């Protein structure tokens, strides 16, 4: 099963690379002209453009260019014209920022969402449950960028207790909340739903009948089974999270891959853009693989199939 999953992942990556390169290839405007203009500081002549295109094999057909691009990308030799660094280097330099942001957002969402969902399910139809459900509905509807602005307005402008910009643990608090709220709301909701379903199963009745303490019933027998859809959700939502980092990193000026992607787009540096699209697709595929592996650990039934 693992081998089949890996094969699919490889195929998906191949398609992704094709798509990324197609975007680069179809980009309007002449790359050679733009780059030369940047380097020379004045309009390049026709001959210079032709020479540049031959030198970088830009006059070759689509598939040959694609092959060259892919080879450069895989060997990490694709250079980003904006900074002169290799795109892999740029990525590795910025990746930790985005990774820590994404992880703290997931951690925030799970740490608050799962307990809230459990409480909501146990105390079904109580006031706590109603409050949780309102929080969950509103949470998925708040645009993250608006929430980010409101948080800045409240904590940085009105109360002045948190800094807006900079890189430190304190600076990660607001971006984490803004990015993680959507996931937090979905997790609360899914945990509540799957917990309700699990708690109505016979084995819960059995464990209560044999006299297990309620805490044990909920956490050991209930939660372990109820958490599987939550893992799926986190895996699926990870893509949204990566998309969200683009906006959140731009607002808080965090030097992560999302901010770099936006900067590259506005700088018309499409080589970096195409490479970063590849990296993001790659990340997403890896996360989904990890989720699949987690399944087999959490749910032994999957291994049998």
């Amino acid at each position: 099963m693992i081998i089949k999953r890996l094969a699919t992942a490889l195929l998906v990556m191949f398609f992704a690379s094709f798509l990324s390169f197609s975007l680069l290839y179809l980009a309007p405007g002449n790359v050679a002209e733009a780059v030369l203009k940047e380097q020379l500081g004045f309009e390049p002549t026709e001959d210079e453009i032709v020479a540049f295109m031959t030198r970088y094999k830009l006059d070759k057909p689509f598939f040959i260019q694609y092959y060259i691009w892919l080879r450069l990308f895989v060997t990490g030799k694709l250079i980003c014209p904006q900074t002169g660094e290799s795109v892999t280097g740029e990525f590795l330099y910025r990746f930790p920022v985005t990774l820590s942001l994404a992880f703290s957002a997931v951690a925030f969402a799970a740490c608050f969402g799962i307990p809230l969902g459990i409480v909501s399910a146990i105390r079904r139809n109580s006031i706590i449950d109603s409050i949780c459900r309102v929080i969950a509905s509103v949470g998925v509807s708040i645009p993250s960028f608006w929430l980010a602005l409101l948080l800045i307005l409240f904590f940085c402008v009105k109360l002045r207790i948190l800094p807006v910009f900079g890189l430190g643990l304190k600076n990660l608090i607001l971006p984490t909340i803004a990015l993680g709220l959507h996931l937090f709301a979905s997790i609360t909701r899914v945990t509540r739903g799957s917990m309700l379903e699990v708690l109505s199963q016979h084995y819960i009745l059995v464990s209560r009948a044999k006299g297990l303490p309620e805490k044990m019933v909920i956490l050991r027998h209930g939660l372990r089974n109820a958490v599987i859809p939550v893992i799926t959700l986190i895996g699926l939502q990870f893509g949204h999270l990566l998309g969200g980092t683009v906006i959140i990193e731009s607002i808080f000026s965090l030097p992560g891959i999302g901010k770099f992607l936006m900067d590259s787009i506005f700088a018309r540096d499409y080589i970096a853009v195409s490479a970063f699209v590849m990296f993001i697709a790659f990340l997403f595929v890896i996360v989904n693989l990890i989720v699949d592996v987690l399944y087999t650990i959490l749910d032994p039934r999957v291994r049998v199939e």
Partner: protein
Amino acid sequence: MMKIVKMRANTAMVLVLVFLGLFSPVISPYDPNELNLKDRLMHPCVEHPFGTDNFGRDALSRVLHGARISLFVAMSVVALTTFAGICFGIIAGYYGGIVDNAIMRIVDSLLAFPNIILAIVILGIFGPSYLNLVLSLAAVWWVSYARIVRGVVLSLKEAEFILSAKALGAGNLQIMAKHILPNALSPILPLMTLDLGSAILAISGLGFLGLGLQPPTPEWGVMLRDALPFMETHPYLMIFPGFMIMVSVLAFNMLGDSLRDALDPTLKLGSKI
């Protein structure tokens, strides 16, 4: 009974939004793009309940027109997505084999892109415009529709009523359009409603990044972006558009959830009960 009341309330919320969208030119007190530099950055008052922005445009009129624009673009996105998803889904499910395999591999690889990222990149490369905005969002979103429709088609293909239609001499196109399509609609209806909400979120997010609709369009995301420099002194310029985004997304999400519960009673989700 509670369910019906809830569903009516949710429908009413969406209808209010649609009403605002349809009649915003009639009910808004000013022209949303009318510049009035004398009255710039006014605080909320009787003439301008939401204040005015840095060009002296009435914020209330702009927020009301925002409903029109957001709904229009969101509906375009969902219409295109649904159309493409249904076509590819039915073709993949009905013909099977190589066709199915090819379409499903494209679906898989598109799923490898976080949906907003591809839209950001497409808009960044090809330039922001209404058409590009709709196309870039639909380019990824049709995938989930195609998957669902394909599943429905696969389960229906061997059904007896399809066989009888075939025996009566119906052509492939006729079977797909007349016998399969109606059955595929009910599972995607909730998804369409939910996606209207997601589309509003995505459109305003892209507008906020400067990649969606462009100023001076009174779109909520664009208005938020324009309000950024005045956040400290005139916070309500960013509070109202954001609030409208939240309320409209909430309305569509809730309607979508109740539709899903109504159409698919076997599905157990948190929104139920």
